[in-house]
């Protein structure tokens, strides 16, 4: 059993997702228990897989015992293990949150089992992308994750359906770009396995076909990651989709495409050792930097908390491509830490957003006055996540910034240091504006918060326990990932394989 963990990591959520309608039909009471125990079990397996990677190195699994060039291979290494662990954690925590959320949100989503099915499928896709050892399997899992994501976003109603349609169109065009890219690679080399490609490609790097495929892959994965200027789908989808879905989409799903960029850049195209790839990485760095600044500036301009979070996601997600583009071990460690840190932070913020929506009936920033009096624990979670977003110690966000700044200055990218620092300050502008409203300003007489204070549901002013528990797990995680970041960097992120393509 233990030897099959890599494939189990994909199979368990897949099996859960597909069996869920049957379970719900025959034993409706067991649905939630079934879902949560499966996700918890998967989380435990992810931890075991990570431990295996740390103690014994990368883990290869051949489906049907067919050797790689012919068969499908799953690989768990330091980076994919991290992504899998994050995805499994977020899936469990959000499942914990979602049930209470939907219970309170009576007017909202009705097709709940369908939601859980799509949600778990999305988790399957994310974990599959992380584990895939060949570029076509990667495509299949990307599409599993994306299609479920379109469906889940559309569950938020009429506006969400339109946002999801645009997301679908752009996402599918991105997928065709991706397919074209791997088609060109396949035409040049005759293989799809990443390990084999990394040996066959270097002599071919100068050819126009490979250059074109690099461009197509960058465009495809860049759109899915919401790299500026390919981010057009993101703000609407994040604003109108149902909260638990967006909490997973913004955290685990977006990360996995950055992770795919890392896999291609370093383990297929040879990283900074190849002049063409080095150029691509440089462009990636510029785009990421532009994304960081654009997202932060746009976030300041928003009046709605949901939209602000959406733009903040664009900014924060770009930290990962930035770390990948820099390409020193410290920067890659920063990118990997950002995968963990941003997932927990943004997940927590979206959960709080959902809570505000349920309790205060608004997500308008100006109407959050006095929230700390009504929802003290949620406000506390909000404060900690905001600090992590800004990058203040001892939260994990600070250590991300530290590693990235360190990496950028080691590699001689002084301007990136400036971008990172500026981004932290811009984040401070919009998050402290919210904290001021939540903690310091008193609700105006007859204002929104005061009004809804009167209409609070009988369940009590604070959110129900499972929702709070989910948020507080993430808050503890943010602090733990900050304090433990040194340990993580030394023991896990130091194993990230740059395949000789990094900057020393």
């Amino acid at each position, binding site marked *: 059993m233990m030897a099959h963990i890599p494939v189990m990591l994909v199979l368990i959520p897949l099996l859960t997702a597909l069996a869920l309608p049957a379970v719900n039909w025959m034993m409706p009471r067991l649905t939630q228990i079934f879902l949560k125990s499966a996700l918890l079990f998967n989380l435990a397996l992810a931890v075991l897989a990570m431990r295996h990677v740390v103690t014994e190195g990368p883990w290869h699994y051949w489906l049907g015992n067919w050797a790689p060039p012919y068969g499908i291979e799953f690989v768990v290494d330091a980076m994919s293990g991290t992504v899998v662990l994050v995805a499994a954690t977020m899936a469990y925590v959000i499942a914990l949150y979602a049930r209470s959320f939907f219970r309170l949100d009576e007017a909202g989503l009705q097709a709940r089992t369908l939601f859980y099915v799509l949600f778990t499928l999305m988790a399957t896709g994310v974990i599959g992308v992380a584990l895939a050892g060949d570029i076509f399997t990667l495509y299949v899992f990307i599409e599993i994750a994306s299609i479920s994501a379109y469906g889940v976003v559309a569950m938020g109603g009429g506006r969400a359906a339109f946002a999801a349609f645009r997301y679908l169109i752009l996402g599918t065009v991105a997928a065709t770009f991706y397919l074209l890219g791997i088609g060109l690679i396949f035409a040049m080399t005759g293989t799809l396995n990443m390990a084999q490609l990394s040996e066959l490609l270097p002599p071919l790097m100068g050819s126009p076909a490979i250059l074109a495929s690099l461009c197509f892959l960058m465009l495809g994965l860049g759109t899915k990651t919401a790299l500026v200027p390919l981010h057009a789908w993101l703000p609407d989808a994040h604003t109108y989709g149902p909260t638990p879905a967006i909490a997973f989409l913004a955290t685990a799903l977006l990360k996995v495409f950055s992770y795919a960029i890392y896999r291609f850049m370093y383990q297929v195209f040879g990283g900074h050792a190849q002049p063409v790839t080095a150029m691509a990485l440089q462009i990636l760095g510029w785009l990421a930097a532009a994304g960081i600044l654009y997202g932060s500036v746009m976030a300041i301009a928003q009046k709605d908390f949901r939209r602000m979070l959406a733009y903040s996601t664009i900014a924060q997600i770009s930290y990962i491509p930035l770390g990948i583009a820099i390409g020193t071990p*410290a920067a890659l*460690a920063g990118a990997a830490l950002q995968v963990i840190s941003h997932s927990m932070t943004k997940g927590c913020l979206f959960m709080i957003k959902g809570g505000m929506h349920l309790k205060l009936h608004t997500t308008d920033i100006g109407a959050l006055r006095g929230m700390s009096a009504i929802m003290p624990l949620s406000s506390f979670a909000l404060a900690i996540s905001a*600090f992590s977003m*800004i990058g*203040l*110690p*001892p939260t994990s966000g*600070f*250590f991300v*910034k*530290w*590693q990235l*700044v*360190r990496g950028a*200055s*080691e590699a001689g990218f002084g301007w990136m*240091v400036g971008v990172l*620092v500026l981004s*932290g*300050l811009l984040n*401070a502008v919009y998050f*402290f504006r919210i904290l*001021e409203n939540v*903690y*310091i*300003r*008193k609700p105006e007489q007859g204002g929104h918060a005061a009004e809804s204070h009167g209409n609070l549901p009988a369940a009590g002013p604070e959110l129900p326990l499972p929702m709070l528990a989910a948020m507080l797990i993430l808050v503890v995680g943010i602090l733990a990932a900050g*304090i433990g*970041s*040194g*340990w993580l*960097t*030394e023991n896990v992120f*130091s194993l990230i394989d740059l395949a000789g393509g990094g900057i020393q």
Partner: protein
Amino acid sequence: MTMDVFMGTRPLWAVLVSILAALLILASRNKPNLREFWTIAAALVKIGIVYSMLPAILRGETLSCRPLVLSPGIELFFRVDAAGMLFAALASALWLLTAIFSIGYMRSLHEENQTGYYASFALCLSATMGIAFAGNLLTFFIFFEMLTLATYPLVVHERNEEALKAGRQYLTYTLISGQLTLIGIVLVYLTAGQGDFMPGGFMSGMADAPVLALIFLLLLAGPAVKAGMMPFHGWLPAAMVAPTPVSALLHAVAVVKAGCFGILRIIGYVFDPKLLLEIGAAKPLALLSGITIVTASLIAMTRPNLKQRLAYSTIGQLSYIVLGAALGTSSALIGSLYHLFAHGIMKITLFFTAGAIYTKTHDLDIRRLSGLGRTMPLTFCAYTFCALGIAGMPLAAGFISKWNLLLGASESGQWGYAVILIISGLLACSYLLPVAYSAFRGERDPEMSHIDGEPNRWTLLPLLITSIAALILGIYPDAFGHFYSLARIAADNILTGTY
């Protein structure tokens, strides 16, 4: 065994104890007595832990512990040395007094949001301990930023527009400068490969002079803003909207002193006073602090509000410390380190008296305080004594530091600074003493006729203790915690380059 572990990790516990206290305070927010008990208890425990390390430091040893790895090759590193001990002992002792004062002050004014106040206060103290004991730049920076964060709720405590504006200003100054310091720290790790504080510094020869000067400038940004150096002082008077105990502890002890302490650490333990001369950074720094001293004193004279006046006085006095560090001779360093401590004791007394007066009058306009000295003799005696101390009168603690600074200025041959110090003393007399004079000799303002006596004893007790302490220290500079010896050991460390 457990005892040994505890003894070995005392610096860590000194930091953690008030974080724990903050959590307990938040947990018992509905029980004011229990909440304040936690504050006092944590303060006592902290004093116990800090002072238990004193004998070893006085023997010239250092205590260190590395509980955690922060980043490859960089640990969360605490090292207690003479300079850190000086700062930690000062902050922990004054926390206890401020806690007692706060209880009296907050209760008599029926302030809101007291739980958040006490919790943030405790967090501030943790951050201060962390800054005092930090053994490397990253650890220092982490606690430095924590201090910024923990202070913010205190600055905006009043929850009104003015407080919000002050809070924004405070964050703007400190966060921006903090980020610059972060870049500086990264550059230090990049050029020197390490960032552990060493007496006499470790940066010499690591890069060319212009690069070193740039790094120094970046590193200095954060501490200089916190210390209220002149072009960056705007937040400090604005932050005086906070309740008086906050101004007392934070703007006399924790925050601004953390800035000064940071400057001392950077000058003495990352760079070296001699290296600064070589790269041409010492003279501009000294000049800047000289200008700050005079200008701040001149501005102070124009402010009618007592707290504002004290704020500008603080800005001026803090630059003594920077000046001493920039001069870099033995006496100057001793004076600078001792001033860190002496100014803390005296300025906190002044703020305590301001707070005590405020609990009675609800007004701090100095024109309306005249005649009150006859009703509140103890309070105003304490005020007068410490005002003279700030000016540098013999028999008060301020004299010791100023004397050493004067010696230092003459040792280094820069007589101009000696003149500035003396002028500053005269200016201090001219803006602090008129308050005392009119209080004892002036006509009572008719609106203040209802004032019947001294403030309540919880507010009176701490300020009497600190003013008596200032007197004793002026006579025996080594009293209470061998602070003078600590300053001397630290200065020796910096100049000899070894612990």
